[in-house]
């Protein structure tokens, strides 16, 4: 299927998000769509599939102009969009999710469970995933849920698949099997639009790449004709310099010491130290227990055994409240459900973590509030109309900056960041790296959990590798490389 989008304009209120944007998709290719957050990638694809209505422009499929009024119409034409935000019914089973709205029925609308099971099994086998069809969705990992979503798309005979950041929550193995499936689909003539911030994946998988910037079409290149620097230049319109900014590490005393931390079934005998001014990277596969270890240190998951020392003194942390008092800040991996009060303003979000410093005996001081919020917005270069701007309407990078700002305003001694750059574009990523570096040079002990190996390698002084709830090794940042980390993360020894 050939798709041609030309001269697409779209505004939300007074905010023009697409200006003369375009896109050309050929039969049986994997086509990367790249751009910074807010460049208009998702909007463009939502216009293609009828989620949004375009203000002007033309869309042609195989030379014929089309106007889809809803995603259902697009799906009938063979175009399926797999959204970044999972679109699953959490209380229902895998099978019920797969067949929602297109159940296989016998007479009188009675569901043919047997036929549905067989079909579900067939699709999952093709994908190489093993998920029980009668498992309830909420019991699955995010990665598994994502796989179910992809299976759902494969069940209708899609001719064009649009995938928005499909690998953000997948494990290495799941990503690999997804890529296998994508390559197989390409052979069958299915075209795939692939939206991702992960350069490595795009260069491994894609045939061509189209780049958008500020809602406009910048260019389309064959992947063999361009390199990463070239892509970045097109995306941001200027040189970005080094991907990971350098930092002079001034490493001080041990601030956080974790000794023998254990929680049955989650992690076992975890011990490590972090020093002032140090960045400790934490690597491992999805589901290795990294997040759980961090949550336990922060008082969200009660531990079975083990002790935590801060500045050499044993501390008892049973709730986030106590963790914050002890000087820990924690930026969670899921900023939408845990990191932000999405429907509240930037000001509300920054203040809620800093109520003590903007109030006196429980009464808020408007002046202190304003000073704090304005300072943070300026310092973090948060792009917004003002402190009252609702976080829902900010781009992913700016949302993450709000989360960072609120924690850094609490002046933590220890800062734990769980996947701090997930779903964040290159420009904002670098700003976040700068913040991390700045925190470290101020003497904060930083722990950064990340599934992006280049990031872990580029930012860390030392790297701790976790596998199945156990610390497999702690590498010096200078000596570590991708191979060593992956060897440890998959159960090998150095």
């Amino acid at each position, binding site marked *: 299927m050939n798709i041609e989008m030309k001269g697409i304009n779209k505004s939300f209120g007074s905010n023009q998000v697409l200006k003369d944007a375009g896109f050309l998709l050929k039969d049986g290719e994997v086509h990367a769509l790249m751009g910074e957050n807010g460049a208009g990638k998702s909007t463009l694809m939502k216009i293609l599939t009828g989620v949004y209505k375009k203000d002007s422009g033309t869309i042609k499929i195989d030379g014929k102009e089309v106007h889809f009024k809803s995603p259902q119409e697009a799906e009938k034409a063979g175009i399926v969009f797999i959204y970044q935000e999972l679109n699953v019914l959490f209380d229902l089973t895998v099978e019920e999710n797969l067949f929602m709205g297109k159940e296989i029925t016998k007479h009188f609308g009675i569901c043919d469970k047997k036929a549905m099971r067989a079909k579900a099994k067939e699709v999952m086998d093709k994908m190489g995933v093993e998920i029980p069809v009668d498992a309830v969705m909420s019991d699955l990992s995010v990665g598994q849920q994502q796989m179910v979503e992809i299976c759902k798309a494969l069940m209708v005979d899609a001719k064009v698949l649009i995938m928005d950041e499909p690998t953000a929550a997948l494990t290495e193995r799941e990503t690999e099997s997804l890529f296998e499936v994508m390559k197989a689909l390409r052979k069958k003539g299915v075209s795939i639009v692939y939206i991702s911030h992960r350069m490595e994946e795009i260069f491994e998988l894609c045939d061509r790449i189209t780049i958008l910037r500020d809602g406009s079409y910048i260019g389309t290149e064959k992947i063999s004709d361009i390199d990463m620097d070239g892509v970045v230049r097109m995306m941001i319109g200027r040189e970005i310099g080094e991907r990971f900014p350098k930092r002079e590490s001034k490493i001080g005393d041990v601030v956080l010491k974790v000794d023998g931390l254990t929680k049955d079934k989650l992690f076992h005998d975890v011990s490590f130290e972090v020093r002032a001014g140090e960045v400790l990277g934490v690597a491992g596969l999805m589901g290795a227990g990294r997040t759980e270890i961090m949550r336990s240190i922060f008082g969200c998951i009660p531990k079975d055994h083990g002790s935590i020392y801060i500045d050499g003194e044993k501390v008892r942390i049973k*709730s986030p409240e106590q963790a914050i008092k002890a000087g820990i800040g924690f930026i969670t991996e899921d900023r939408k459900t845990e990191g932000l*009060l999405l429907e509240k303003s930037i000001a509300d979000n920054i203040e809620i973590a800093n109520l003590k410093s903007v109030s006196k005996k429980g009464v808020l001081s408007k002046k202190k509030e304003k000073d704090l919020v304005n300072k943070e917005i300026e310092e973090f270069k948060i792009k917004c109309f003002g402190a009252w701007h609702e976080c829902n309407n900010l781009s992913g990078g700016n949302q993450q900056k709000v989360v960072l700002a609120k924690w850094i305003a609490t002046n933590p001694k220890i800062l734990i960041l769980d996947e701090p750059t997930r779903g964040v574009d290159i420009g904002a990523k670098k700003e976040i790296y700068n913040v991390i570096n700045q925190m470290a040079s101020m003497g904060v002990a930083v722990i950064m959990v990340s599934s992006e190996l280049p990031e872990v390698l580029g930012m860390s002084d030392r790297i701790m590798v976790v596998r199945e709830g156990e610390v497999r090794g702690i590498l010096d940042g200078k000596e570590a490389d991708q191979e060593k980390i992956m060897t440890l993360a998959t159960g090998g020894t150095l």
Partner: protein
Amino acid sequence: MGKNIEKNKMNIGTLIGEYGAFIALVLLVVVISCVSPEFRTGSNFLNLLRQASFNGLIAFGMTCVILSDGIDLSVGSTFALSAIICAELMIHGTPAAVAILVALLAGTALGMISGVLVTKGRLQPFIATLITMTAYRGLALIITDGKPVSRLAASVKSASGAFLFKVLGKGNFVFGPNDAISVPIPAIILVVLLLVFYFVLHHTTFGRRIYATGSNEKCAKLVGVNTTKIKIAVYSISGFMSALAGLIMISRVDSAQPTLGEGYELDAIAAVALGGTSMSGGRGKIVGTLAGVLIIAVLNNGLNILGVSTYYQEVIKAVVILVAVLSDRKR
């Protein structure tokens, strides 16, 4: 420039959104005033305020609960049980001031129990307060054996105690030349508490934490908000407000019945919804709730004066609430 334009636009939008309930209220008052000369008298307006005070006090507490993403169905039963406790104490010779104090504390404790069931018991607020609503009503019936407790003021021995009890519901604050203006005490209590709630919700850290808990509990917890404490607190506040309203009621009618306040939870929830507070928490304003309370009171009072049958009154109320909530949703 672009930024300023954007901000102004949004302000006009939010202005209409924020004061939508007041606009509806003013329209309603103007329309009924045009039709009925009886309605538009000063004394009727004051009377209306007194009638509104019961629902108003309860709705203020309800607003806090709903802002925290909860609901309190037990307010009507708490209203009755607290009133019964006060009445029983008084006819058994307890000084009025002590009886009133005990009843207020009892109301607070009754609310706290709902809060504990919601947080420690991990029950859904609807279920938790359905349980307390049923239990408290039962207790009120058991204590009184289903009979009203009457002649309350006469049972108080000291003159000052009797005055204190009577002034709560029947008293008027009189002022102006020749004592021309007399404002019912319940209306004054309502206004004072409006100011207190406004201050607490918008100018204290506690208020912020209520909004944060209702907006996203997980996130609030992670930034160190003790959401368990906050939730127990809002249910306790709701219990206190219901008890206060109950005391004003028995002072006014000089007797306490175990069936007092039946269905009051629905009027309170309706007022909160009319005022634009989100039923899923995190968004809303106490002044909106006041507007909602007044809309309901004006409807009750106005339709009565106009002689509309009570059967039709219910339907008209439903339509007004529907229209108000629908127009609110569009924004």
